[in-house]
Structure formats: C-alpha cells, structure tokens
C-alpha cells in the first residue's frame, strides 16, 4: 500500500512516500523513519505520490515534525491537493514548511 524510499547522506535525508499513509502503513513509516531521525539534521519528505494520509499517519508525521523541530529542520515537498486539504484541516500545515 505504501512504498517508502529513503536516502540518507550525512546529516541530510530525504524520504519519499508513494501510496496511502493509513492505519496499516503508519507503522511501517514509523519504523522506517525513526532510526533515520536519530542522525539527521535536515529532512525532506517528498509527498509527490502520496495519495492519502489518515489520522494514524498524521500521528507519525506529527512525531516526526516534533523531533525535527528539536533536532534541526524539515520540509515537505510536492504535496498534492487532497493531502494538502488534510494538512490544512488538521492545522498541521501551520507548523510545517511546505514547498
């Protein structure tokens, strides 16, 4: 359901998500992203092919945002309209650099 591709170079990392970040895939995303956060200061999340994000997915995203705000910086790129709606609706877009 969700394809996660991550690339880490020193203190920079980029993760792109493809598919649906929902209850079923939120744990996979969590397991993939958490070890990366320990070493990284700059994180880019590419949402180009992310179709949908559910509240379980948002929970992981919020934890990532919280950690990266403490450890460095992060931004989200290529957000499509329906995912943007969800980020707006939950107020998360206010806390996030979106390009």
């Amino acid at each position, binding site marked *: 359901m969700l394809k996660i591709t991550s690339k880490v170079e020193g203190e920079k990392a980029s993760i792109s998500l493809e598919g649906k970040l929902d*209850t079923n895939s939120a744990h996979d995303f969590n397991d993939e992203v958490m070890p990366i956060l320990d070493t990284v200061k700059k994180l880019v999340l590419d949402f180009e092919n992310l179709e949908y994000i559910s*509240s379980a997915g948002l929970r992981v995203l919020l934890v990532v945002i919280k950690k990266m705000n403490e450890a460095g910086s992060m931004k989200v790129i290529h957000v499509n309209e329906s995912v943007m709606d969800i980020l707006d*609706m*939950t*107020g998360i877009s206010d806390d996030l650099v979106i390009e």
Partner: protein
Amino acid sequence: MSYQGINLGINIEVPVVATIIMSILIYNDLFVYKRSIRDNISVMLFFGIFLGIFETMWSCFEGNPSMKTLTYIGAIGYGITLFFFVLNFNRFFLGLFKLLPRNKLLIFLFYHLPSIIISALCISTPWTDAIFIVDKSGNIIATKLFVTIYYGAIWIYVLSAIVPAVFYSFQDKKREPAIAEAAKSVVVFGIMMPIIYLLQAVEYKGLNDDNINLSIVIAIGLVYLTIRVNTRLLLLTKSQIDAVEADLHAAAKIQSDALPSVDLLMKDVRELNNGDRLELYASMTPAKDVGGDFYDFFMIDDDHLGLVMADVSEKGIPAAMFMMSSKSILANNAMMGKSPSKVLEDTNRAICTNNREQMFVTVWFGILEISTGIIKASNGGHEYPIIKHSPGKYEVIKDRHGFVLGFEPGKKYTEYEMKLEPGAKLFLYTDGAVEATDPNMKMFGINGLVNVLDQVEDASPKDTIDAVKKAIKEYEAGGDQFDDLTMLCLEYK
C-alpha cells in the same frame, strides 16, 4: 505365504505405522501448537519416534544372521529409547503433580544414575551379553538381567507416575482442575497401554515378546495424551478470549452510556423559554467494539448549548480511553463559561500534560445561543461543519482550522461566528463519513456527503442521519466499516 510370513509382515508394518503417527503428532506439536522442542510432550514424542524406528529395525533384521550389527543397533536403540521415554513420562507427570524430588542427590539417584547404568548396559551388550544376545541364527534373546533389572526399572517409573495420578484424579476437581485433568489422562494412558498390549497378544495368539510392538502402544497413548493436552490449551485460550470479549462489550457499553442522551437533552430544552426552537439528533457507530469518536452536547446556561464533535487519532481500546478523558476535560472547560477558542486552548494544554503515547484528538466545538441562533465556534483540526441555511442547500463551511489537540501545549485557536436562521440545519461529522470507501477504494468524499444531505434537505435531524448512514452503507457495498462513524444534526426552528 506361511503363517510365519504374515506374522513377520505385520511385525514390520506396525512400528512403521506407529512412527508415522508420532511424526504427525510432533509436526502438529511444533508447528501448529508452537510448542517448544524441549517441552516434555515434544521430548516424549521424539523418543516415541526413535522407538518406532529402532523397533522397525529390530523386526526387519532379526533372524537374518548376516545383519547381526543392524539387529544389535535396533535392539540397543530400542532398549535405550524406551527407557528414556518412560523416564520422561514419569518426570512430566510427577512435575505436573508437583511431586518431583527437589533434592539433588535424589534426582541423581532416581533419574541420572539409572540412565547411566541402563545406557551402559545396553551399549555394551554386544561385548558383554548383558541385556540382549543376538544368536547365530540372528534371533534376539533377552537375558535374565533384561527381564529383571530393565523391566523392573520401567515398571517403577510407570507405576510411580500412575499411582499418584489415580489419587489425584479422585481429588477435588474444582481446586486444581489442571492437575485433575492431567491425572485423568495418565490413568487412561495407564489403562490403555496394557489393554492394547493384551489385544496384540490375543491377536498373535499368545503373550510372546517377539510378536508384540510397544511402539504402537505408545503411539496410541501419545495420540490420546497430546489431544487432551492441546484441547485443554485451546479451551483455556478460548476462555481467556471470551473474557477479553466480555470486557470489551462492557467497555463499549460504558462508552456509549457516556455519550449524552438526545431524549434527556430535549426534555430539558423543552422546559426552556425558546426550547421548542431546537431539534437535535446524534449517533456514533464504532468500527470496532469501542471507538475513538465522540459527540457531546450540554446546556452551559439557560440560553447556551455546547456542541462537540471529536475524533481520536486511533481506534479500539486505546482510543476509547483517550476519548473518555478528552471528553470530560472538554466538557469541564466548556461549563466554566469560557469562549470556544479558550475552551480548546485549555483542553489542549490539559490533554498534552499526560499524553506520552502521542495520540491526538480533533475537535469542533461550538456554543449556540438558542434565543438568537448565533453559533460561536472554534475548530481544532476537525472536519468542516456543514450548514443548510434557510432557504438554501447544504454548504460546507471552510472554517479556519487550529492545530489538533493533545500534541503541543500553548497552541492558539481562532474563533468565528455563524448565524442560524429559523429552518437552518447544522451537520457535524467525523472522517468516517467522508473517508468511507467503495470496493474500488474510492472515497465517499465531502461531495458524496453533501449530495446525500441535499437529497433529504427537508428531513428531520434523525431522518437526515439515518439517510447518511444508509447511503454510506450502500456505498461500502458490503465491505467492512473501516472507521468510526459519528454524526450530529441540529435543526433551528
């Protein structure tokens, strides 16, 4: 074919069948019931299988002078595995009855020393003729030592497990059901073994050691034993699951009881000056037994009605627990007469304090002034409210959203105002209503929801909600309801 020939044929087939039976049992034991390989039952089964293999060798090669070495291996293997099987049988049941000796010396004397002696006697027998002799024609002859010492030891181990078992099987079953059950298995096992043994003897016309296969006796005994033990395990697991399910149902009842009753509210409202201006209905349908969605409504004073629609980020028990505490924190804040944005700010701060699990809740909170129809509202990351003005169609109010609650203390929330004219309706819902999917995983969506609402624009709040429920059920086309579905509809007259 001579009688002798038939006899030899059966003699080989029986231990082979026994070995196959026990191999199936061990497969079930290890792979279906996930029992450990070091578990007593697994160990007994392994010894049983080796016993079957050695007995097959014994039956195959006996009477063939050129196969003297293989005959010896069969007989020695048989002697050792049978002994260790019985030893394990004894330890397993004495262990269950809590009768195993604790003293190291006793353990050594009762278990280790006999094992060493019997093993030594068996292994050395080709040179010492201690237990078996394979004579010139290739036949195995059991010595006096075998009949006395070896069989003696076997009987001591078997009887010392069966005697306490008989005692325990008459014990009070209620006090120690597990022990009584195990005791019964041993007693049946103990009765069955000699019966099968005798049946074989009758079959072969005489109690002649040469014709009797112990492996099949043990295999049948083990079939009985493993079935008993595993069935008991399953029943135990099932009763635990049943208990958890009963708890879940109780939790679901507590949760639905915690949601306010429309009838009670309407009764209170009717007594107010403008009471006949309101009609309200709400429903929550959890996807699992318990859910994370909730609605709430309560009179703040004689003219102000608090309205809440909320959704916790997860589902099931954790969400339900989070929901219960969020709901009461929110209601307590609202009853103090604070403004909607202040209610969300303070609720957020309170939830954040004890939220190590990093769950969150989205909340729409509004206060309706019944006399004027003015709603002051604030949105903490929740779905857009839908309003039908009169006259007019249903319309999604794209209100400004604050952050979800429970994640960051100190978040600010904005507030806005709407006015309900007589005949207007307010529809609140959680994401279960818009994220319902059809069999092709296409979402119902906000447009789907507004379409249904428009089709029943003149319906009462209850009929409106029933219509949406029905439409979503049809849309899901028999698929499972994936998310909690919660709705509230208010009509202002």
